């Protein structure tokens, strides 16, 4: 997929661990880990809102688009 989740970078910037963030936003470690590693198919606005609030960032900071040949 051309959209990459940059949650690990933001978490490293904020010096926040996965467990800490999971506890803060009320998500399971497994789900958050899946989101971080790009295994999830999508993200709800609700979840994005909570993550942005917890990390103090913009939705655009969480994702990055890279052009991939032959995808469409």
């Amino acid at each position: 997929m051309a959209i990459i989740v940059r949650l690990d970078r933001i978490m490293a910037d904020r010096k926040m661990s996965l467990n800490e963030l999971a506890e803060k936003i009320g998500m399971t470690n497994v789900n958050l880990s899946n989101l971080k590693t790009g295994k999830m198919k999508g993200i709800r606005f609700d979840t994005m809102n909570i993550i942005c609030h917890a990390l103090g960032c913009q939705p655009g900071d969480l994702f990055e688009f890279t052009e991939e040949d032959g995808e469409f």
Partner: protein
Amino acid sequence: MNDLSKDLKKRTFADMIISIILCAGAAAYLISMLVSFLNNGMPEYITNMLYTAAIILELIMLISIFLEIRKKGKPFSKSVIIKLRIMAVLLMIVGCVPNLISVPKGPVEEMTDLFTEEISSMRVIYFDTQNLLVILLGVIIGIISEVFVYGGKLQEDNDLIA
């Protein structure tokens, strides 16, 4: 576990208890039928026992479905679909089994029985609308299992959304 799962667990508990009570009742009825059959040897008891055994099997399947829903907190899973399909096939097979009843003989036959001193009745096999109704129930459960297949796919998709 989200609120939906908790709510589902709560709701299935009452259904499971009702199913267990019905299953116990059906088992008691089956035993009484067996005792009556051993005492009288009337053919009606055979079909009744077969239908009751099928009801018990259906209820056992239903209880196992409820147990799984309570365990996982989700109604759509492969094993639930398989169990529903087994229930549907079982109902369709049982629906194809004709009834076996004893019909009293007419006056002429009864007169002959006076000499032979046999029980004056004859056994008749018949297939009626009740059988069709049971087959139709099986078909409906089969259709519901297909709805569960679609639900399972939607749930898989939903589980992959954070």
